[in-house]
């Protein structure tokens, strides 16, 4: 694999990661015909998936890499809690909540710029 990377360069790297990503999607399709949505295995898979995507989401917010890591953790969590509170208070309110969250993050950036 390393030799192929060396000789073909960047596009070979992309090819490998595209295959690595599609593999799970394709395998899921091939296996999905054998899973009944009312079965215990479906319930277990749902718990595993929600646990995994929950971990990924919390990681992106609490332990981010790049620019977001400049924003204090307390502020990031505070913005999330405000948006969740508004979302729970008024269901089907996704877009306004996202706009609020984005504005609060921009506000932090502006304050950081001027202080």
């Amino acid at each position, binding site marked *: 694999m390393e030799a192929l990377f060396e000789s073909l360069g960047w596009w070979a790297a992309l090819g*490998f990661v595209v295959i690595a990503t599609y593999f799970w999607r394709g395998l899921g399709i091939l296996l999905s015909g054998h899973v009944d949505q009312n079965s215990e295995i479906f319930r277990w898979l749902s718990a595993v998936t929600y646990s995994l995507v929950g971990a990924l989401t919390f990681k992106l917010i609490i332990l981010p890499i790049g620019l977001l890591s400049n924003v204090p953790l307390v502020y990031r969590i505070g913005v999330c809690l405000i948006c969740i509170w508004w979302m729970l208070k008024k269901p089907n309110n996704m877009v306004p909540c996202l706009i609020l969250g984005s504005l609060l993050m921009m506000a932090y950036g502006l304050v950081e710029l001027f202080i």
Partner: protein
Amino acid sequence: MNQNNIKIRNQALINSIKIGAKVGLLGPGPVLFGGMLGFGAMGQGSGLSIWHTTAISFFMYALPGQVVFIEMMTMGSAASAIAIAVALTSTRFLTMTLTLFPQIPKTAHEPPRLLMVHMLAMSTWTTCMRDFPKILPEHRYGYYIGIGLVCWLISVPSTFLGYLIADAVPPWVTYALVFVNPLFFLLSFTEVALVINRISILVGGIVGTILYPIYPDHALLITGIVFGTCVYVIDYVLRKRKQVSQ
């Protein structure tokens, strides 16, 4: 099946694709637009060409894996390490597919699932999992294709645009662009119906955050499989006890 039935079924599929596309344009689409703008800017900052960066969004279409790929490429990591890391971040697609597609009944001459599954991403999955219980099973595939297609098609030009405007956008705007994706996922979780799934999200989130600094490469997988299974087992035992007491 006669011609008339095929015509009616195709029309129903097109109608549900249109409804899904509309939902995609109003909900996850703009969110993904923001997220991919941020990714385009990241590609520019990492020194990749605009075509390389856009090709990543087109062919991979999995934002966390894309970020890992660019970061590891920039750091000069070994090819095998990059492939393994991306494969690990993408394992969620297996269970996401296994939980979404069994809810869609198979029909003859439907668009090939092995092709359409490329459009499965967290944004599409969370929206479909939320809405499928309210949608007739025969309309779910079209609905999924509509949302998935809109989101995928948005991701490519927004990556391109993000790359182009990377230098023009002030950092305080970029804060919002990189934050909007995780916030969307988080807010989508508030609409998850089953209590067991809500508990799984919470447990996964807390345990994953603790494990990530210790096992950065495997934390997500361990959290999903081990702690998701723990939540399932507790739920199973409680349900059985309830059945016995009744």
